[in-house]
């Protein structure tokens, strides 16, 4: 008994001892790991500085060499060997002026900017991958494509009708605007793919890869390959006659017809790297017959390779997307070093994360705008200067679309009456908190295409009533609802409106509209739907009316939404079945007109006709409310999409107490 007892005690003691040992062990391991991580980060920073010095040495070297050659030249008189300098390139048509103009009136990084720092933003849902052609996601192009991918040229920031060079240093366009000769820069490298380099399987990806005309050709071939799921892009290049490679850095695009859009499509083309997308994971090229299908689900789809100012670092589904500055970028580098987008679905977290400084820049929803800014307490960070905000008109508009194939809305007087009955001004000011501007036509309010002289119809139930009775709608049986005799059949004015269910403001607005319509004797049934269902209904044309919105590019081609050839296309954007011969003609003319003034005239004519026909009840262009932390400096919002391009911004936390400095 006694012996047993001591044994037990010894056992317990031993156990205790072992637990203690284990605890110490864990602590030690933890300590070691800590040191390892510290030294790893040190090594990384040393490597970084090494790289920097290497780059500057190389620059110095090339400077010295060119300096020497110049000296030699001056010593030897007129005859000298020309060293390969960029100026030495030969142009095919030297007499043609370079279509690209350097942007001189814009400074990307002012001298006071800190070239460091991270900016953290919000990203709603997981992207559907990063495939540069098949993924057609507006959010993604604002995040990845804008920073990591690059086109031949792009619009000037201050004057969107001019183009500034990016990948191309010179573009020659023939007089008929059919042939584009593009000279690529010779010093643009693709980013290093973000793969695990310690794995020998990826050895075939190593080395420097330059952006060449081969990549351009590869991209165009893929876009035109019917196997690739990029139908909307393929549509753009339908009229391309050929894309010819002259040498490694010169490409010719020739178009069949003279269309204005060819400028956008040619200069806006973003090449993709063949050395990644043409091969499978083991470095074997894909066979021609299923290259397109393979490309749709390419092994690199969850990552991205570009050639822009930022390169892709990592994407963790549901967690974050990270980009870092491309230190080998050929042009002026932006100031912010790292871009991070946190991914989570729930927008409630937005404001909280903003207050805790986990996020640096977000757009507020209108509810949040009301709660935090309109009704916010004075000591809240949104009010006391810690977080700045700005309302910004986004190039888009909301509308109610009327199905022109429906017997009710085939009459333009009815459509107009519906607009007169929609109390737009009141709704915008009270329900939508004034976050927007009323619009009267299919173009962005602030774009030159929009005719400022055409004012939106005012709210007027009397006018609506007269219009309706002109169209033959009368209350025949005195039940308060209008009727019309159509081919011997008496039909009531009753229709249903499809509405996307997530917006509380729209819900309220439609209900007010419903009341107003009832005063006229019109019965409107509201169906709030899930987006996928609503889309299916619209594709199958099973609707009377719906609420929707379009986001617009700066210079819009109205063909997609307004041309009557699109009315019977499946999945087309002309869902309401708008057919108007005059507009068709104007749209076609617009497509082949290049003079700005003439174009604007045409745009205004289209605007006028559409305003008269009123196929949509145009509502408003919405405003986004952008907010950012005080330490994000020089925030400027650009006229063009993406509006919140962070390239000219910089982060300066020096004025800040360093206690909380977010995670």
């Amino acid at each position: 008994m006694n012996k047993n007892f001591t044994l037990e005690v010894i056992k317990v003691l031993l156990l205790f001892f072992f637990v203690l040992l284990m605890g110490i062990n864990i602590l030690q391991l933890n300590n070691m790991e800590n040191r390892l991580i510290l030294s790893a980060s040190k090594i990384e920073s040393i490597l970084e500085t090494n790289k920097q010095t290497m780059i500057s040495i190389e620059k110095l070297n090339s400077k010295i060499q060119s300096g020497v050659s110049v000296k030699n030249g001056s010593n030897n008189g007129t005859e000298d060997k020309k060293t390969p300098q960029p100026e030495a390139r030969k142009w095919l048509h030297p007499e043609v002026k370079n279509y690209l103009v350097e942007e001189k009136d814009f400074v990307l990084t002012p001298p006071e900017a800190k070239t460091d720092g991270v900016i953290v933003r919000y990203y709603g849902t997981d992207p559907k991958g990063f495939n540069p052609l098949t993924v057609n996601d507006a959010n993604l192009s604002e995040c990845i494509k804008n920073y990591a991918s690059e086109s031949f040229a792009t619009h000037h920031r201050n004057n969107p009708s001019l183009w500034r060079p990016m990948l191309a240093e010179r573009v020659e366009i023939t007089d008929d605007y059919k042939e584009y000769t593009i000279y690529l820069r010779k010093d643009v490298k693709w980013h290093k793919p973000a793969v695990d380099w310690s794995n020998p399987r990826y050895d075939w990806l190593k080395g420097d890869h330059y952006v060449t005309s081969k990549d351009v050709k590869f991209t165009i071939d893929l876009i035109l390959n019917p196997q690739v799921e990029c139908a909307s892009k393929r549509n753009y290049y339908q009229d391309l006659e050929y894309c010819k490679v002259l040498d490694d850095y010169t490409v010719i695009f020739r178009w069949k017809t003279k269309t204005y859009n060819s400028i956008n499509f040619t200069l806006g083309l973003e090449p993709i790297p063949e050395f990644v997308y043409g091969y499978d994971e083991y470095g074997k090229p894909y066979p021609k017959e299923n290259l397109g299908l393979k490309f749709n689900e390419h092994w690199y789809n969850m990552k991205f390779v570009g050639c822009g100012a930022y390169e892709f670092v990592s994407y963790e589904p549901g967690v974050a997307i990270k980009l870092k500055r491309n230190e080998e970028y050929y042009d002026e580098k932006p100031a912010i070093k790292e871009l991070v987008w946190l991914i989570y679905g729930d927008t409630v977290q937005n404001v909280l994360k903003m207050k805790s400084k986990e996020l640096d820049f977000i757009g507020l929803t209108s509810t949040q705008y009301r709660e935090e800014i309109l009704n916010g307490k004075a000591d809240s960070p949104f009010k006391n200067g810690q977080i700045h905000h700005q309302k910004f008109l986004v190039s888009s508009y909301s509308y109610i679309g009327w199905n022109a194939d429906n017997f009710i809305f085939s009459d333009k007087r009815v459509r107009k009456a519906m607009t007169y009955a929609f109390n737009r001004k009141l709704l915008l000011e009270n329900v939508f908190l004034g976050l927007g501007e009323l619009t009267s036509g299919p173009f962005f309010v602030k774009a030159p295409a929009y005719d400022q002289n055409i004012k939106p119809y005012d709210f007027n139930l009397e006018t609506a009533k007269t219009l309706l009775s002109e169209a033959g709608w009368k209350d025949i049986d005195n039940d308060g609802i209008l009727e019309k005799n159509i081919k011997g059949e008496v039909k009531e004015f009753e229709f249903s409106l499809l509405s996307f269910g997530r917006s509380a403001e729209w819900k309220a607005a439609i209900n007010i509209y419903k009341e107003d319509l009832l005063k006229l004797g019109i019965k409107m049934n509201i169906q709030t739907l899930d987006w996928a269902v609503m889309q299916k209904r619209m594709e199958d044309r099973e609707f009377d009316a719906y609420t929707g919105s379009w986001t617009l590019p700066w210079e819009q081609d109205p063909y997609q939404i307004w041309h009557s050839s699109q009315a019977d296309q499946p999945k087309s954007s002309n869902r309401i079945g708008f057919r108007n011969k005059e507009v068709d003609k104007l749209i076609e003319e617009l497509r082949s007109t290049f003079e700005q003034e003439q174009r604007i005239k045409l745009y205004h004519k289209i605007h006028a006709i559409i305003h008269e026909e009123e196929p949509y009840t145009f509502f408003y262009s919405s405003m986004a409310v952008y907010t950012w932390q005080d330490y994000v400096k020089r925030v400027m919002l650009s006229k063009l999409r993406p509006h919140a391009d962070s390239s000219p911004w910089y982060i300066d936390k020096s004025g800040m107490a360093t206690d909380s400095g977010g995670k």
Partner: protein
Amino acid sequence: MIPTFFSISLIVFVIMNLAPGKPGGELLSAEGESGEAGGAKRQAYLIFKQQFNLDKPILFNLRFAIKTEEIEGYLMQIVNEDGKTSGKYIIRAQDILEDYGEYSVPHLIKIINKTENSKIRHMAISYLSQNAQRRIINPYATELDEKTKEENKEIDAENLYLRDLTYKLDSPEEQQQAVVQKWNEWYDKTKSRFAYSAPEKVYKFLFDTRFARYWWNLLHLDFGVSHVDKQPVIKTILSKIKYSLSLSVPAVFLAYIISIPLGIFSAVKQNTYYDRIISTVLFLLYSLPSFFVATLLLTYFSEGGGYYSVFPTGGYISRNAMEMTTLTQIQDVLWHLVLPLICMTYASFASLSRYARAGLLEVIRSDYIRTARAKGLSEFMVIGKHAVRNGMIPIITLLGTILPVVISGSVIIEYIFGIPGMGTLSINAIFNRDYNTIMGIQLISATLLLVGLLISDILYSIVDPRISFK
């Protein structure tokens, strides 16, 4: 078990395919549609449909028996000469003709030879050049043998030839006739491809369908690829499971640890004030919806909430996790999980402790407990050793049914706290009409439910010697 599994998959499959909305629509941002992205054209959509077998009928295939007149009717709708057909029917007819694929080829050939109407002939030929194309064998396989490769090259060459075998509507009559001639020649050569024997028909009837194809892949343990990101479904699910597990396992553990003692306590103190207070509080908690509590917790207890900034605002791990040691990483994850755990556990206290209480009460009244008391054992021994052991048997059964919940996660909690687990995955899959992912998740949880039931049955027999399977 296998028949149950089969019928579960059948039911889920049919419901999913009948639900309104369809996959592959350009699912853009939830707020609306983007102007530049609209108007995806037919061809790419067809490839999409073929990849996911959406062009096949759902359960049974009767397409070998379609009539030429039917096809001609659809063509007439598409041509829409009198302008009376509304866009809705045109689009539907286009969809149907596309889906008919190879089955429509002999009929279309008949139509182009027979018809007088040049527009219909033109339309028929454009459908022919699309439907007569054969699909490349195993286009998504990583490795193909030489023979298939050769065959594929042949198919590709033929497809290229057929793709261009069309003419413009306004081209001269001779050219049109030449194209028709070429089609006839091609058809004479390949006629055998479109004539089906009786066994072939039976095979097509049963197996050339969406469901059969899906099951055939399932038998190879292939759940397919997601419609949205084109990644294998099983890979995505496996990568999400760790997030859900680290949330749900502690949640279940906590719920049991807390509610069983509570249940026992209230059984022992049955009908006293303690019992009543516990019951009231637990039922109050039970009736609070978790999304509400979650939002409250976030606004009051998270950083940026302003009241008690203790916990992080959602997420699974901090952004600088790469710079942490393992220990701090664990600590960080736990810190992130506190609020979601609270939300996931508090509601189950009520039911679990009720089960424990009821189980124990039943036992406490039985004879052997009275005997044990009569033996003179202490109350603690009576309850702890004799009663609890037997009283907890129903709780064990519950454990089995919890397994699928553990894996499939909590949709609401994960969504609100931004945890990228299975719950978030399934809600996104449903929003995107991502059939393969939904099916994958459903089937995995169905399997787990069946396994869980089996486990609880086995546990029963182990714990309670009175139950046996003989």
